[in-house]
Structures are given as C-alpha cells and as structure tokens.
C-alpha cells in the first residue's frame, strides 16, 4: 500500500476527475477489487476509479504520476496471471464504463470500440454484419476487448486465424505521464514509426492505458463441422496432428484431452466418453461446406492411419455440439475435483506436445499431484491444470515445485512459460530464464521510456 501521506486527498482528487459516484474507497469495494481470476494472489488497493473517457483516464494518470501512486488498469478481472491484482496498492482503474462499439464496417472490414466492450459483444456486433472477430479466449463472454488486447489473448481458433495481435490495426492510448497518443489506424499497410500498437498488445497494462481500439475483421465462414478421435496414447494423437497439417489442411479446431481429463469429464458430464483411451482429439473446420466435408474426411483418415481406435464425424449441429461439449467441460470437470484449481498455459512446439504431456504426468506422479492436461494441439498451447486442496499446505508447495519443473522443461523444448495468460505477477520470476538477461534488461528500458516514474502496474512485466 502506498504511504498514507501520498494518499492524502486521493479521493478528492479522483472525484474531481471522474465525478463523485465513480470513485470507490469503501473497504468492501476495495476487497472485491483486490483479486482477479488468479488463485491465491491478492493485493489491496486504496481506491477504485471508473473513468468514462480518454481525458478522464489521462487526468487520473497525470495525478498518479505526480504523486507516485501505482495504477492498475482493469477490465472484467478475468486475468489468470494476477496481472490485474493491485499488490502494491494504489488505484485500480476500471475501464468497463467505456463500453461502446463505435463502428463496425463491412466495407472496410474494421471495428472501432472502446476497451470495456466485452469480446463476445464485439463478436456479435461483427456477426450481425456477416463478419468475424476471430480471437475467442475461454473468457470471451466476460472479458473485455481492452483486456484481451493488453494480454494478447489467444483462444481456440489461433492455429488458423492467429491471436489478438493479428487483429489490432490501431490503438488510442494514454501514457502514464498523461499524454494521449495514437498508433496505427484503419490501414492494412502503415509503417510510419515503430509499431507501438503491436508493442502495446500484450504489454499487460504496464506501458499505457488503451482507450480506443481499431480491429481487423474477416468475413464470417459459411459453416463449420467437427469430428473426434480416440487414441491409445498422446504420442499417436500428436503424430496425427502432424499428419493433418502436412496433408494441406489448416483446421480451425484441433483440441486434445489427456486421459486424466477424459476421466474427469466423463465422471462429471457422463456423455459416454471412452475412459480407457489415452487421448481424445477434437478436430474441426470452417468455411465452405464442400471444403469442410473434404477436410474432415482427410483429418479422419490422418487419425485412422496414426492408430486412432475410433473416429467419428459429427453429422449434425447437435452432434457437433456434443463433440465440443467434451472440450468445454474439461475445466469445469477438473475444477470440481478439489477446491483449488491451478490452470497454467505452458506452450511447446507442436512436435513436442506428447513429450511435454508425458513429462507433466511424470512430474505429477513424482509430486503426488493430480494434473490433467488439455489444450490446443494445433498450436502447442497446453493447459496443465493441477487440482488440490487449498488448505493442504504441503500440496500447494508440491504444486509449486511441479510447475517450476514444468516451466523449465517447456523452455528446454523451445517452448514458452506462457502461451496466452501472460506474465503478470505469477511468472515474472521465470521470465529471465526464458528470455535471458540482455532481453529482460531491454524490456526494463522500454518500460522506463513509457513510464519514467514506474506507476503503471508496477512489479510486473518490465519491472
């Protein structure tokens, strides 16, 4: 928490900027803004403020910068790396009042919106004009576009459509020192200056506060189709994935569940999964119905030739929904096993998935933990999920040791400690191991160039 002297008059100054009813300093409200979706991490802010315009954001930042008060930008608080936890106190700057979709243009294939728009709302506004905003992180019904851009969120369609960064054409942002800048705009081609919009995408609220986003849209696919295949082990499923991609098919969906997840989902949802299988692969394609049929057929063949014990292509939308249900139920099923769910996102090259998942199981057994792994087979983004009793301090310590090993292994396999959840507080200590000292020193210099007084989301990326 910032020193009391610094905070004298904090509330009064914030009220001057955003109005009385948009500042909260009551203890109850502060408690509810002290966490996000990350387990075990907790801070304690001194104030929560809800600005409605870029000018108000600038007013809050200028004041905080003068007084050296930390500011933590926040959307809906679905962050999974404690990136929105105010662990050094200060001001939580909530952007959900800035929730207008300003424009969706089918002629220009762009959308312009404020950061507090929910991702699924933007997707619906695009869909209403026959367009698609492809990034679809699991939290899209709650998470905001601003938060997704700040974290460079991924999702289930990343292999074919890319991640959030691939859809950010332009941003308006407020620097920690209070200036309002724009980078990029509606142009597909624009190389004037450093590509700051890309730098801000994934900067985790440590460089600037984004107040308007111009996003690229694509024409919505006509249709989609899905199938599923069981394998005796993950290695054969992984070989099938390689074979699919080598066959000239770029699928929209390639998701897998390991044996632990299959068992947990079946216990929870009872949808008739084969719990004796070593892995379940769910594949899908979108686009023209003829292409979908051809690609699903090819993917089914690839699975069969790599030893799939059974393959099924969904014949109807209802059947497709059943197929996807298994994947959607993975996290709920695991989370119901124990009170504490630790969801990670270590990512490795596709060709190393089987190796990595085997390693995760070996580590889990060695540390006497239950870890299920599901994830995006197409892009190597794994979600090893440990479930344990939060009251069992020994288990929490063992989980900590296990994830230490899992991250180290991911780096050894040319992977990353985080594919889509971000560094936040949680993984800062692993970052230098992955990037090296020179690289992290450069990150700090970039951070200092944007934020000389270190007020914006301090103690996280760039610190």
């Amino acid at each position, binding site marked *: 928490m910032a020193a009391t002297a610094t905070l004298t008059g904090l509330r009064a100054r914030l009220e001057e900027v955003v109005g009385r009813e948009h500042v909260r300093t009551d203890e109850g409200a502060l408690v509810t803004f002290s966490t996000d*979706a990350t387990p075990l991490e907790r801070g304690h802010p001194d104030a929560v403020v809800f600005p409605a315009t870029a000018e108000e954001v600038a007013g809050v930042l200028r004041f905080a910068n003068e007084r050296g008060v930390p500011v933590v930008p926040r959307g809906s608080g679905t962050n999974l790396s404690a990136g929105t936890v105010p662990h050094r106190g200060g001001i939580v700057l909530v952007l*959900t009042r800035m929730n207008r979709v300003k424009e969706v243009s089918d002629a220009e294939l762009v959308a312009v919106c404020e950061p507090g728009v929910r991702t699924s709302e933007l997707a619906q506004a695009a869909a209403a004009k026959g367009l698609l905003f492809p990034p679809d992180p699991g939290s899209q019904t709650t998470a905001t576009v601003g938060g997704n851009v700040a974290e460079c969120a991924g999702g289930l369609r990343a292999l074919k459509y890319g991640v959030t960064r691939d859809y950010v054409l332009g941003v308006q942002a407020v620097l920690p020192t209070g200036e309002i800048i724009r980078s990029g705009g509606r142009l597909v081609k624009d190389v004037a200056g450093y590509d700051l919009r890309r730098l801000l995408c994934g900067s985790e609220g440590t460089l600037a506060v984004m107040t308007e986003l111009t996003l690229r849209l694509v024409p919505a696919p006509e249709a989609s189709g899905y199938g599923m295949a069981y394998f005796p082990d993950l290695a054969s499923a992984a070989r099938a994935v390689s074979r699919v991609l080598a066959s000239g098919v770029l699928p929209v969906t390639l998701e897998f569940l390991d044996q632990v997840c299959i068992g947990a989902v079946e216990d929870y949802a009872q949808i008739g999964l084969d719990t004796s299988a070593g892995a379940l692969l769910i594949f899908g394609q979108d686009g023209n119905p003829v292409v979908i049929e051809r690609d699903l057929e090819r993917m089914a063949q690839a699975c069969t030739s790599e030893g799939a014990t059974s393959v099924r292509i969904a014949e109807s939308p209802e059947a497709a929904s059943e197929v996807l249900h298994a994947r959607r139920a993975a996290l709920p099923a695991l989370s119901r096993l124990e009170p504490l769910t630790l969801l990670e996102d270590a990512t490795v090259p596709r060709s190393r998935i089987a190796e990595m998942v085997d390693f995760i199981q070996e580590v889990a057994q060695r540390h006497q933990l239950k870890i299920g792994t599901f994830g995006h087979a197409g892009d190597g983004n794994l979600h090893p999920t440990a479930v344990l009793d939060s009251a069992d301090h020994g288990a929490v310590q063992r989980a900590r040791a296990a994830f230490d090993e899992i991250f180290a292994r991911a780096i050894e396999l040319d992977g990353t400690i985080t594919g889509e959840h971000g560094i936040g507080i949680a993984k800062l200590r692993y970052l230098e191991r992955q990037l090296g000292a020179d690289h992290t020193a450069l990150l700090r210099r970039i951070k200092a160039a944007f934020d000389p007084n270190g007020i914006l989301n301090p103690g996280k990326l760039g610190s």
Partner: protein
Amino acid sequence: MTVADVAPENTPESRGVFTPELLGRCISCGFCLPACPTYELTGVETSSPRGRINLMRALETGVLPDNDPTVHEEASFCLGCRACEPVCPAGVHYGELLEEWRDHLWNGRRRPWKVRPLLWAVDSPRRVRAMGIVRRHAGRASDAPGPVNLMLGCFERVLYPRVSRDARKLAPELAVPVAQGCCGALHAHNGELERGNELAKELGEALPGTIVTTSGGCGAHLAGVLGTERVKEFSQWWLAHEGPVPEATAAERRVDGRLRIGLQDSCHLRNGLGIWHEPRELIARVGDYVELPSAAACCGAAGSYAVVRPEESARVLEPHLDEIAAADLDVIAVVNAGCYRQLQQGVKRRKLRTRVVHIAELLAGENDRAAAT
C-alpha cells in the same frame, strides 16, 4: 496461476458463517458477471456474484466486520435470482450461500423493516388460511390430501386465486386441501433459513405425496427441502402428465389468428430447478410463442425485493417492458406469483396492451377469453 510466488495461503480462523464447501467452490473465473442483473446495472465488481462471494469470504475470515456497510448493502442489493448458477463452471451453489449470508446478517433485528410484516403474515398457517378465505381460490375444506396435491401458495391465493381454480379446472384429479400454509421460501430468502426449512417440512406433512405448485419460487425452495421427486412445478407436471390439450380448440383459434405469447421465466424455476423448456412447449400449443431476449433474466420481482427495493426492482424491469412493447405481445405468460404482480404493475404503468397471464390460466382458456375481448 501462480503457484510460483505464492506462499500457501494463511488460512485465518473461519468464523463458521458459511458452509466451507459452498464458499470454497468459487474459482473466481468471473463467468458469472455478465449473467448478473445488478452487475449489468452498475458495472461494478462489488455488485457481482464473484464480488459478493469475495465479500462473504472477507466476512468469514474476519477481514470485514459484521457491520460493514458494503456487506449489508450488497446482501440486500442482490436479487437472489441465481442467474449466476447455470453459467458457473465450478458449480457454485450461490443461492444457498446467499441464504446463509442473509441468515447471518439479518436474523434478529437487522432485517429490512419492510420484510417484517410479510414474514409475519405468512409465518402461521392459520394466518395464511385467513388471508385466502375471502378469495375464491381452489382450496376446499372438504378435500383430504390425495396422491397429487395442488399447493395454493400464500400470496398467490390472495392476489391471484384464479390460478389455482384454473389449475384445478385443467386437472380435476388434483387434491386441494385448504389446510396448508406457506412453503417458507420468503423466510429462507430473508434471513430465516431455519424457519424457512421448518415451514417447508410442515407443508410437506400437510400435503403428503406429490406437491404441484404454480409458483416457481416456491417450487425451488420446497424441492430444496423435500426433494425434486416430490415437488413438481405446474407446467412440468402437466407436460409429464400428458394433459389433454384440446387440439380442436387450438385449430379453431387459428381462424381468428393466433395470439403472440411471450414468457417470463421464473428465476428459481429456471436457475434452481432447470425448468424452462416445459412452459415454452405448452405455450406453443396454444399460440405463437415469442422468445423475448430477456425471457430468462430476472424481472425484478425477486420475492420480496420489489417491496424492499422498489427503485432497483423497477430498473431491472425496464428492459423487459421495452421488449414486450417492441414485440407487441398479446400475452406475456408467467409461472410465478411474484413475476405476475411485477409485470402487471409494469404493463399498467406503461399502458401496454399486453395481458399478463399465468400459464395455468392460459391453458385453461385465458387464450379464448383474451381473443374474445
């Protein structure tokens, strides 16, 4: 996550306000936020289910004291609609947590004063019976409990006695003994959990066998105490019972043009008991069913909420009225007495032409009556 930097949580002494398994369930993912009407009104985390669970946790660990004003405000501001439950991946029983929360905060003197006369009125089966005595509800002193009994409800028998009459008209085999009290839902939702459960058990004894209720809110509370095997909501029971829908009448009606009928779900019926399809199917048999975008969202009645917090209750209702007006409905059907009153008042205030009708009334021929006018 973050096993990384995290020391095992210091688990401060728990005070025993909440059942630990219920409070421990929430994984703080935030998926409940967009489903919550009060979060939609305010955009403030503190007024969301996740925010409220964080308040409960702070109360449980003593981080916040019993008299914290925000804790009290949020316990009262919550509609208790349980729309957060179906969208929760971790399966948090929010409704039970809310009951425990209010039981702790309100039991005794701190209950909102407007609730007190309501609870007093329904606390004794004798008073409930007296309230209904001047109204022509379906209850008969001569009726002995049968294998399947119709529950009269307490406020419903006073405000909307025709609902039970029409339910009985549709299904004469329903026994409707007049000696039955309140189900206790109002108590349970307003900080008297124990008394709420007692009343449900007493009603279970007064009506042995299956209990059919025309109010979703009562149904969910009763089923929570007596089990879903014994307690059936009217449309659920009627559909399973294969009640004869006069197909010929339906065909005749088509000549005059079918009515456009919407539905307001009962929150606890939908979110608590998972029943939403049944009333829709029944409506589609007698008219053109129109699904309003907010059909599944709370109308703001929320038991005693409309009485305790009339301003917020009216704000929650507004979008529903906008949609009813935009869809130009002939009828908006309801499956709960509270929603009946809330929508009737709203429709009247806005001077809409839409009629508010309980599903039992609709099936028993309200459709014809409305068409005739």
